[in-house]
Each structure stands twice: as C-alpha cells, then as structure tokens.
C-alpha cells in the first residue's frame, strides 16, 4: 500500500523536524549561556553593534549612523538604504590598492 509508505515518510520527516526543533531548543539553552558570557564583553568594551558587515561605517555601526551617511562612504555597498541598490560603485573604490 502506497499510502502507508507515504504516511511513514511524512511521519519520519515530521519527527526529524521536531527533533531538530528540540535540538535547537536544547542548543539554544547552552548557547544562551555562551552569549551571556559575551554580554560581559559588550559591557566592558562598550560595544553598540554587531560586527557583521565591515565594508562601511553605516553597515559596521548601523545604530550610530545618520540618515544620509550612506552616501558619504560607498554607494553600492550592501546597506540599508534603498538607493544603494541603484547607484553604482565609483571607479576609485573598485581597486582597493589605488586608494591614496
């Protein structure tokens, strides 16, 4: 019977997903402890932002920027202002070693 095989497949997949969610929950607890350790680092270094995008000021420190700072650094970077996806990269920024 095909429907048995299908149901078994469905249940297996659901169980895997459930297992992953439980694993995530469990890992989340242990990770929570690690992150609480990191919070001390945030306090002592007085950090305000995550170090994810290092390409420009406004992506490295999104919380510290102004409305217009996107255009002060480099248009075309991955950024949170819509116009950045339209303006292209100026030639002097294309080859990093040529910067004076």
């Amino acid at each position, binding site marked *: 019977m095909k429907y048995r095989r299908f149901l078994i497949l469905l249940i297996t997949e659901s169980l895997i997903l459930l297992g992953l969610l439980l694993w*995530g929950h469990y890992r989340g607890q242990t990770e929570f402890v690690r992150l609480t350790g*990191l919070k*001390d680092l*945030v306090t002592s*270094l007085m950090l305000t932002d995550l170090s994810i995008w290092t390409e420009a000021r406004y992506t*490295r420190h999104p919380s*510290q920027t102004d409305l217009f700072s996107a255009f002060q650094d480099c248009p075309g970077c991955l950024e949170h202002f819509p116009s950045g996806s339209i303006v292209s990269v100026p030639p002097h920024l294309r080859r990093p070693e040529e910067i004076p």
Partner: protein
Amino acid sequence: MRRHLFILEFALSGLCRRRYKNLALLVAYSLLIFIISSILFLTHALKREAELLLQSSPEITVQRLMAGRHALVPVDWVDTIVSIPGVIDASPRYWGYYYDPFTGANFTVLGVRSSEFPLKGREDLDPEDCLIGSGVSETGLLRTGDSLVMVDPEGIARPFRVAGVFSTSSSILTNDLVVLKEETIKRFFQIPEGYAVDLVVRVANPSEIDTIAKKIKEKIPSSRPITRTEILRTYESLFDWRSGMVLSMFIGALLAFFIFAWDKATGLSAEERREIGVLKAIGWDSSDIMEMKFWEGLVLSSLAYLTGTITGFVHVFMLGAPLLESALKGWSVLFPSLKLRPVIEVYQLMVLLFLTVVPYMAATIAPSWKAAMTDPEEVIRS
C-alpha cells in the same frame, strides 16, 4: 475514513505513474521552500542574537553633530552630563576605523582603559600591545606574539604586538576589532587633547533613559544621544527589512513557480483525461475526483514543506548558511562565522506556510475543479 485512504492511495499511484514530472515539481517546490526558510531562519536568528547581546550595550551614547556630520566630542561635556540627576557616570570613548591596504579589510580600532580590560588572567595591556578579533587574525595571518602593522596619519608604520586573539565564539562581536590602550589609540589617530570620539552615559534607572537623553539634547543642542532601546529597535527593523527585501525580490520567482504549478495542473495530458473519464464512468463522483486532486496537492506540499524546512534548518544552523554568506557579505572582507543560536518559533514556520503552501494550494483549486468536471462520455469517445 477508509474511503479517504483509498482516494489518497489512488492519488499516490497517480503521482507515481507520472514519476519524473512530479519529481521535478517536488524538487523545485522544496528548493523554493529551502531558500525562503533559510532567509527567514537566518535573519530571525541574527535578530534574536542582536537582541540578546545588545541588551548590555551602553544605555546612552552621545555623539556630536557638526555641519550634519559626526565630529569629535569635547571631553568637558562629561561634566554637563554628569550633573543631570539620574546619571551615574559618563565616560569618553575612543574608537575609529582603519583601512588595511594589505588585506583590503576594514578594522574597527577600539581604545580601552586598563580598568575595563576584558582578557582573563591578565592585569593590563602594554601601550604597544593590541588584542585582535579572529577575523583580523585570519586575514593578516597573525597569532599571539606576532605584530600587527598599522600606518598612522603621518605615514609612519607602527607595529603593535598581538597580546591575544578573541575566540571565534565571540566573532559576531569582535571579528574585526583591534583593541588598543586608550593612550595608544589617541596617539595613533592623533585625536586632539580634550576631545573624544563619543561619550558613553550610564544611567541608574532604565525607565529614566529617555528622559535623560532628552535632557542631554536640551542642555547640549549639538549633541545626538542614542539610547539603548533605539539600538535594539534599529536592529530589529534592519533584519526585518533585509529579509522582507530579499523576499520581495523573490516574489518574481515565487510567482513563476506558482504559474508553473497552475500550468502543470491545468494542462492535463490525454492519458490523465482518459483516466479521470474512466473513473467517472465507473461511478466516481466529481467531489471524489476533486478530493483526489486535493490529496495530490497536499502530498506534494507537505513533502516539499517538510523537506525544505529541514534542509533550511540544517543549512543555516548546522552548516552556517554557506549559500547565503556571499549574498550577505557584500564587500566585507572580514565576515564573522555564523554560528547562530538555533531559535525558531512557530511564527517562522507559519509565515513560511503562508508564503509557499497557501499560494500553491490556491493555484491548484481551479485546475483540479476543471479536471473533475471532465465529461466521461466525451473523453472515452475521443
């Protein structure tokens, strides 16, 4: 109950008979769900990470605006700010960016006072020492004991001895950091005496933060206070925006897929038409055919949904989202390893359901009705 199971059985047999066509559909469907779930899971996990970590960021940071740009803050603002009731302490912060021409990476250079020195087992940092994040260490091939060379504004190369490397587990915070002593960074960047980059204000009672920020703005009109809740809210909407943006760019692909599903369900092959005609001729009701078609859609959707979600979860939380990394990275030379806390809520799963399964089911309603209305006589005669 048995009747429904038999119809399900029949639907499965039908799917198996057109194995390759349905397999192609299933793969495309799962891939779509995989990509969307990866985006949702990743941005959600980053959001939660930011929310948790930045809770201990400074209550208020004060910047100075001059001609609409950030400018150095006079250190004597500290006295003005400390005189506001409710403020425990205000201290200058020294930090900046350094573009490293050898690796093409941007570092964030940060000054610390000895009292807040974060490395365990050591009392103090020597003036010529630095601590570096794991990203800096990797791109510059630097280990503890080596020296990091940075060029100061006068063009003189200055070596700093690497006193320690931040562990990779903290890379989401420290990946691009170069930590120097406060006096060293002032000297290196040549920050004029009596000025700082910005000020950090500590407040005793969290509920007073907004009032105090407002008072700072009133006393020093050229200042720009940023409160902690604003930082948290910015991150919240930043990631929503990013995932929403990616999703809306993805709508084209979604639509294409649903049109494909629609088309696949509408364009019945002659064989399928005959099959339905025979079923009706031997006494199946139209609603039974519709139920069979519904089961077909549900079988495909549930398998694709589960497969897509599972692979998305594994991709983001076990493998560190390698496929999305290049898209997220942009121009950043330094990018932290994404070891994220696997936090998923029912909410993400439901949004995923609404973005994929609901439109799919909607796209197949009308075609399956059309199929069920096939006239048996007409089909068998032709």
